[in-house]
């Protein structure tokens, strides 16, 4: 048999198109009638905010490539130009489905359930109109900045991502010339305006409609001919994406001066916008035809998240899940004592994140604790962790905090609390040049009777108590000496010191992690070739590293059974004869955002399980500091395997990748309906109950006190 070329582009999926498929899967949740109505609003909102980010980061990046004349093909053999073209088609289609979902499915449902969304201000009753006009004058008018364009006033700067109303008008009693005017819909005001209710049905109208109705008041000397909302997305103020190849970065740097900053890469307009108005916008903003999206409905669907937040309608929302206590770490326990008894695994958000915060809080107050070191990537506002770290420094502990300033869209926020920590006396380090520190690790050094002992927390998710209620992640507490040594070395490295000679247990990106993964896959392949059991189960957020995919193809071809649980982008294709017949890929999109990275390797019936912060993406494996850690205690390994198995069993939220590249829900015939996320919730509740000792007061038998000296 001829050697197969596993790097043949035909075997790979373009990552951007794969991402569109992911957003489609989120969208399918919004279309799922079995899901409570308001949850569906939320999913639709997420597809919109996802798409915005996708434009700003990925589409912008492709634009850069095209502008720079960079035409290297991607893993699937597509040039940037070809990718942009394919994306334009796919995104137009996605937007169509978004709005048909909104118009045909969600709006009627809302109506049925007593919430009427007034589509256009023309539908208002006179009483409502009066209310709206008053609202406009009192609240909206003062913050508006109308701008007209004429011979003395140039076309104004339209802000990125802002919602605007464009209008055509004519000076009263004057010439025939049409003038253009625009006003930004202020983002400081609520997008949804609720009208006074009369009867059962509540009514809301969107802010842009309120402004549109009153636009005449902004341009008193003009007659308004037409007014329509529009919204733009710019390729602006973005640092170069770390995802791209280095040669590209150099190319772009060279082109930087020539590049047109602030180029408009998407123009959304209300469907049916006046042709003359559109023509002006197109000309002034310099948008290409394929980047114009005519929208049948309100622009920027992220307002639906606000609609979700409307008071009431709780029967149309999934009841809030309360993260459960961890029986191994009961409230009030000394966390260090408990960790010494054995490694502890936490599964968030099913189990509460509190012990992690508590770990740092106790460390900050424990007189025997010498030092606390932690990496922080994205932290919630008002984070209890930051407070505990500051407290620790105040108590004389050596506190080192690695603050990653390069966390996307978070920079300003991060700088603020980094300063705060510095003021409190913490030693703040900012990571390594050119590498984002994405690993999540905390080290507490404690002096005990027989010398120092190191307590380590390793996780797959950020130290963010807010997102820990929404993202599914796992975390490990351990005081294993070898992991403790490694953790110390990690922080030495992050402080700019040399790498250790040897890692005991941890594998770090960018230097060693990829090789480690490839070796683990290779070992399974070898076992398969020798006829021994060989299997890989891997769960992650994205899979697009060409080397890893190639290794997986080789392993699959050798007979390794591979099951992948990939939430988002997946450049691997399944079902290619002789290449990937033994590989399955499924994606779970549910109430919680799947975020944990768990890797199972059969290792000839002596299975190994690893968790980490890295996806199988080049940026994670090559341009970030990431940590992969093994979980070795038997019960915990079983726990992690159980997580993977449950996700492979899921028939409700899972969608399975087909050989044609599409995703389809699991064929439920002959199968029991099973929702993994729900099962984990139930298990966490049951597990927490088991751990609870019966409180004294709940006993119903009262035992009389016996006199001692009878």
């Amino acid at each position: 048999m001829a050697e197969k070329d596993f790097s043949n582009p035909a075997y790979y999926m373009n990552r951007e198109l794969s991402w569109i498929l992911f957003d489609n899967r989120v969208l399918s949740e919004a279309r799922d009638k079995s899901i409570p109505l308001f949850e569906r609003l939320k999913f639709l909102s997420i597809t919109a905010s996802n798409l915005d980010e996708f434009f700003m980061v990925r589409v912008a990046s492709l634009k850069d490539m095209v502008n720079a004349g960079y035409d290297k093909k991607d893993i699937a053999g597509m040039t940037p130009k070809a990718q942009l073209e394919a994306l334009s088609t796919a995104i137009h289609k996605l937007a169509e489905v978004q709005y048909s979902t909104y118009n045909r499915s969600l709006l009627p449902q809302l109506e049925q359930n007593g919430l009427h969304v007034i589509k256009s201000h023309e539908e208002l009753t006179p009483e409502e109109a009066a209310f709206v006009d008053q609202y406009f004058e009192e609240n909206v008018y003062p913050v508006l900045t109308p701008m007209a364009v004429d011979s003395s006033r140039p076309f104004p700067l339209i802000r990125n991502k802002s919602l605007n109303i464009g209008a055509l008008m004519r000076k009263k009693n004057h010439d025939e010339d049409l003038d253009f005017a625009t006003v930004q819909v202020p983002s400081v005001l609520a997008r949804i305006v609720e009208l006074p209710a009369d009867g059962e049905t509540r009514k809301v109208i969107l802010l842009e409609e309120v402004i549109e109705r009153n636009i005449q008041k902004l341009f008193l000397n003009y007659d308004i001919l037409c007014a329509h909302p529009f919204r733009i997305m710019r390729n602006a103020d973005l640092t170069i994406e770390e995802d791209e190849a280095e040669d590209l970065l150099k190319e772009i740097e060279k082109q930087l001066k020539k590049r047109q900053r602030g180029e408009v890469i998407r123009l959304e307009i209300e469907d049916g916008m006046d042709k003359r108005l559109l023509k002006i916008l197109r000309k002034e903003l310099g948008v290409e035809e394929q980047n114009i999206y005519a929208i049948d409905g309100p622009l920027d669907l992220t307002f639906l998240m606000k609609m979700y937040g409307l008071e009431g309608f709780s029967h149309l929302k999934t009841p809030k899940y309360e993260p459960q206590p961890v029986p191994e770490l009961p409230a009030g326990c000394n966390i260090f004592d408990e960790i010494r008894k054995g490694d502890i695994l936490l599964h968030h958000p099913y189990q509460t994140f509190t012990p992690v915060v508590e770990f740092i809080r106790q460390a900050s107050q424990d007189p025997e604790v010498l030092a606390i070191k932690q990496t922080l990537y994205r932290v919630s506002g008002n984070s209890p962790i930051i407070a505990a770290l500051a407290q620790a420094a105040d108590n004389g502990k050596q506190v080192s905090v690695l603050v990653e300033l390069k966390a996307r869209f978070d920079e300003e926020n991060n700088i603020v609390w980094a300063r705060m920590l510095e003021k409190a006396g913490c030693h703040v380090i900012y990571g390594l040049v050119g590498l984002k520190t994405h690993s999540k690790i905390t080290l507490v050094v404690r002096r005990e009777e027989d010398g120092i002992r190191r307590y380590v927390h390793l996780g797959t998710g950020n130290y963010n108590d807010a997102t820990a209620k929404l993202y599914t992640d796992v975390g490990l507490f351990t005081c294993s000496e070898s992991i403790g040594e490694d953790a110390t070395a990690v922080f030495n490295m992050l402080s700019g010191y040399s790498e250790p000679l040897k890692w005991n247990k941890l594998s770090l990106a960018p230097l060693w992690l990829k090789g480690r993964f490839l070796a683990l896959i290779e070992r399974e392949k070898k076992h398969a070739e020798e006829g021994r059991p060989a299997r890989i189960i891997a769960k992650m957020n994205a899979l697009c590293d060409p080397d890893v995919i190639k290794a997986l193809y080789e392993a699959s071809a050798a007979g390794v059974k591979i099951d992948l649980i990939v939430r988002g982008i997946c450049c691997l294709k399944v079902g290619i004869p002789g290449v990937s017949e033994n590989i399955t890929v499924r994606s779970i999109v549910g109430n919680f955002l799947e975020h944990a990275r768990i890797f199972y390797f059969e290792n000839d019936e002596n299975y190994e399980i690893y968790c980490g912060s890295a996806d199988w993406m080049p940026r994670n494996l090559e341009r970030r500091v990431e940590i992969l850690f093994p979980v070795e205690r038997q019960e915990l390994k079983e726990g992690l395997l159980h997580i993977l198995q449950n996700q492979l069993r899921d028939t409700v939220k899972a969608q399975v990748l087909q050989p044609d590249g599409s995703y389809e829900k699991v064929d439920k015939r002959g199968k029991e309906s099973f929702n993994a996320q729900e099962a984990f919730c139930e298990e966490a509740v049951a597990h927490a109950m088991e751990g609870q000792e019966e409180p004294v007061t709940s006993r119903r038998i009262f035992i009389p006190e016996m006199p001692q000296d009878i």
Partner: protein
Amino acid sequence: MAVRTFAAIDVGSFELSMKIFEFSGKNNMKEIDHIVKRLALGSDTYANGKISIDKLEELCRTLKEFSRIMKSYRVDAYRAYGTSAIRETKNNAIVLDQIEQRTGIRIEVLSNSEQRFLDYKSVASKGETFRKIIVDKTAIVDIGGGSIQISLFDNDTLIATQNLKLGVLRVQERLNHLNAKSGQMESLIDEMASAQLSTFKKLYLKDRTIKNIIVVDDYLSSWAVRKFGKDVNKSIVGIAEYEKIMENMRTGSRSQIASMLDIAEDKVPLMFISTVILRRTALLMGTENIWAPGVTLCDGIAYEYAEKNKLLTGEHDFEKDILACAVNISKRYMGSRKRAETLDDITQTIFDSMKKIHGLGKREKLYLRLAAILHDCGKYISMVNLGEDSYNIIMSTEIIGLSHIEREIIANVVRFNHSPFLYYGQMGGRESMLSTNDYLVIAKLTAILRLANSLDRSHKQKLKGVKAQLKDNDLVLTVDTQEDITLERGFFEERTEFFQEVFSVRPVLKQRKQF
């Protein structure tokens, strides 16, 4: 026993490193942190003789960090040593003072022989394997930037040590000068190494083969730690396997070698030089095994600290090594072994009996013994100018485990054994190295050595069984001998004057004839 924490800092030529150790219970030494910062102080020093302002800044910044880390572990003590980069800096006194003022860390400068001795101690700290290995003929090859040090063991004692100017940086420097093509590299390095190594062989080895080599370096050692893990007992490579590594290095590209050995690419050329030199050494010695325990100077510093503070009881007798080396040096210069032994005996007897008076300790006793062993090495050059020649020989011979000042003390004691004693201020500038305290040690040891020497004037070891006893202000030396000691008695009288001057004790010689 309470846990003690100690920090060892090595201010090296290419790297600054600190290890934190924890001592708990008897003989329990554990490394708990190891911090390494790349900082090439050597490149400044070797080129200009001074450390640049920038590097000094960086050095201070890092030491401050080290100090912070030490604080975080609440270390009980630390020791910071500077090696050749600091040693060869012209203005090192100023630099070291500045560092201390700015960081609070006091750096002491190690002489080459002290540094090598600590390296050696770090190897010895690996206990069991070390003891097993040195039962056979073994050499420690300590490869540094400027030079390499080869130390030979026989019967588990160190017997000789030699410094060769074959450090990896030095060799690389020369190769750069030669503008050598990569294909020629190996044979050029080989040639350079062979020239020096064959002299070494003539001097120390003759036809003996050395079964084991223990290597201390920054290259093969770290590779071995990566490959074999932290269990040092496993990191022994057979010569055949070593040849395989060599072969891979010959054929691989720089990046291939780097990824194969898991080292940084910029380290590959130095690793190559190190590997070639070691291979040449092994071939020359007929070596079978190479052990790379992966130790660093910091391990030696901690070992020394632990020994001093009785946190560890070392199984290896390092003093015996130093004495054995001295005996070998004496042998090379045709010193009389018997006479040295007699003299060693007598000086020890006098030293011990005078403890209350001279107030000197164990270390000074070692100086005295070394002076006794080396007392006549100068006669190899000239019988007339014995004092000066001996002084010069000792000063230009490295004795492992001794600092420069210690060598100066011993050399002076030997010199004044033969030449007139010079008082402080009369030494023509040589005393500038010495403190008054060192000078006093020289005076006291000279007095003892002179007295002992007079007792064996005839070189016939007549007065072997000398007994000494301090009675009031008299030091009574009783000898058991049937022989005529008129000659000895005559010299003895001559020497008592100086002895009295130094100690205010009058030596008295008594002969007890037993029939």
